[in-house]
């Protein structure tokens, strides 16, 4: 990987990757501009955040980006929506065998201070810190999306490093959405009411989303918003969530960044999972897998096989 970045670097303005953050548990974005920056690049279970979120704002520059499977889906979807120019992007892909969820890890191992090393060995995660060595089953501490990741390898890449991996067999236990669906409609509504009472409207869920590209023109923050007011209450927060969900329908690449970024630990993935399931069921396709496919909600069929006629 490092070798191919070094070789491509002279033709690029910058390459996006990850480097170690303030401790071994945290990786932080790395902007590679010079050959010596390449040495700081790391790849592994701590390289969690999607760097693709940076790309639309770098349009016009020639940018390289290091991508896991799910990150590459975001890039492919952005290409598909003509929000990026393929000629300006160089993809450094690899096969990813999962990343850590800091929330789940803390639940299993307790608070982790000044971690000095994080290693994944087969199906365990080993964490060392001055307090000693702790380990957990990887499936218990990985990001939920990794449990049944269907796209571990970069979907599209100009350079691919390392072996290609087999997709994970779907997790046997029920998905979070399936468990949620066991509740009645009233219980679900009450659930969101409680969750939305905790929402602080920080918009981290939106800002972390690689497919949210309107940025400061977002419907939700316009000075004279027609859809959501600045009032702080559960229904306005929920309205904002549903704006996000509807604007991502057929576009969400299930990267889980929205839920990961939420400081209030609100299970936003449930809403996205439903939208993904629905659009896959209706349009038989997955976002971010084919850069040329038309966008399902910008096209139609005169006879829709999947939609019951209502006359």
């Amino acid at each position, binding site marked *: 990987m490092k070798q191919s970045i070094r070789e491509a670097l002279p033709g690029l303005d910058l390459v996006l990757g990850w480097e170690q953050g303030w401790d071994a548990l945290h990786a932080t974005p790395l902007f590679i501009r010079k050959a010596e920056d390449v040495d700081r690049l790391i790849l592994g279970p701590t390289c969690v955040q999607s760097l693709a979120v940076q790309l639309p704002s770098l349009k016009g520059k020639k940018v390289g980006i290091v991508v896991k499977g799910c990150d590459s889906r975001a890039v492919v979807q952005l290409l598909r929506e003509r929000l990026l120019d393929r000629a300006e992007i160089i993809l450094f892909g690899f096969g990813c065998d999962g990343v850590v969820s800091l929330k789940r890890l803390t639940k299993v191992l307790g608070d982790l201070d000044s971690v000095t090393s994080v290693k994944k060995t087969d199906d365990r995660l080993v964490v060392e810190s001055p307090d000693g060595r702790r380990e957990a089953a990887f499936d218990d501490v990985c990001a939920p999306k990794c449990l049944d990741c269907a796209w571990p390898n970069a979907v599209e890449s100009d350079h691919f490093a390392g072996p290609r991996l087999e997709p994970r067999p779907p997790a046997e236990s029920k998905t979070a959405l399936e468990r949620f669906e066991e509740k009645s409609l009233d219980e679900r509504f009450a659930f*969101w009411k409680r969750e939305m009472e905790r929402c602080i409207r920080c918009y981290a869920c939106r800002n972390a989303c690689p497919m949210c590209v309107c940025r400061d023109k977002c*419907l939700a923050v316009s000075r004279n918003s027609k859809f959501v007011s600045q009032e702080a*209450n559960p229904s306005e927060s*929920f*309205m904002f969530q549903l704006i996000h969900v509807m604007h991502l329908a057929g576009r969400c690449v299930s990267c889980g960044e929205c839920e990961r970024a939420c400081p209030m630990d609100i299970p936003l993935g449930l809403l996205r999972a439903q939208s993904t399931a629905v659009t896959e069921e209706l*349009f038989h396709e997955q976002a971010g897998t084919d850069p040329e496919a038309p966008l399902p*909600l910008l096209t139609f069929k005169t006879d829709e096989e999947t939609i019951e006629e*209502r*006359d």
Partner: protein
Amino acid sequence: MPASPGVDSGNELRILGFLCNWCSYGGADSAGVARLEQPTDLRIIRTPCTGRIDPLFIVRALINGADGVLVSGCHPGDCHYVEGNFHARRRLETLKRILPVTGINPDRFMYTWVSASESGRWQEVVREFTARIHTLGPAPRMSDTLTETLAAEGLPMQATNGVK
């Protein structure tokens, strides 16, 4: 048989209808002209085309306390703008199927197609949908609006956004 719902019986619910100007609004109009009896719960918003209806209009209505939302346009193939309702169909169906995860009963939202000449069909649609919403009863609310909160606390409503 219970009294037909509506303003006279004092059990009116809030139902919003987004109607396409060219077909369903015409259908509702001719139903009115023909004096076909209809429940009074429906408040009609006339739109240029169902293709103009952002699914978020429906979400906003449901979150703001509408007990039901009805969308009606021209039959597929009959759109004044040729393909507006084809686009609408995909969006509205997507929304309808996403609603269950929110806990908002998807039965509170219905979309259908009624042409300008189908006044009888319009009457049927409104009757059936209104009856369905009355079976479901008033929709649960996620929170009071600012106006309601202020009213409950006996405070005056202040102008916001420059709008009095």
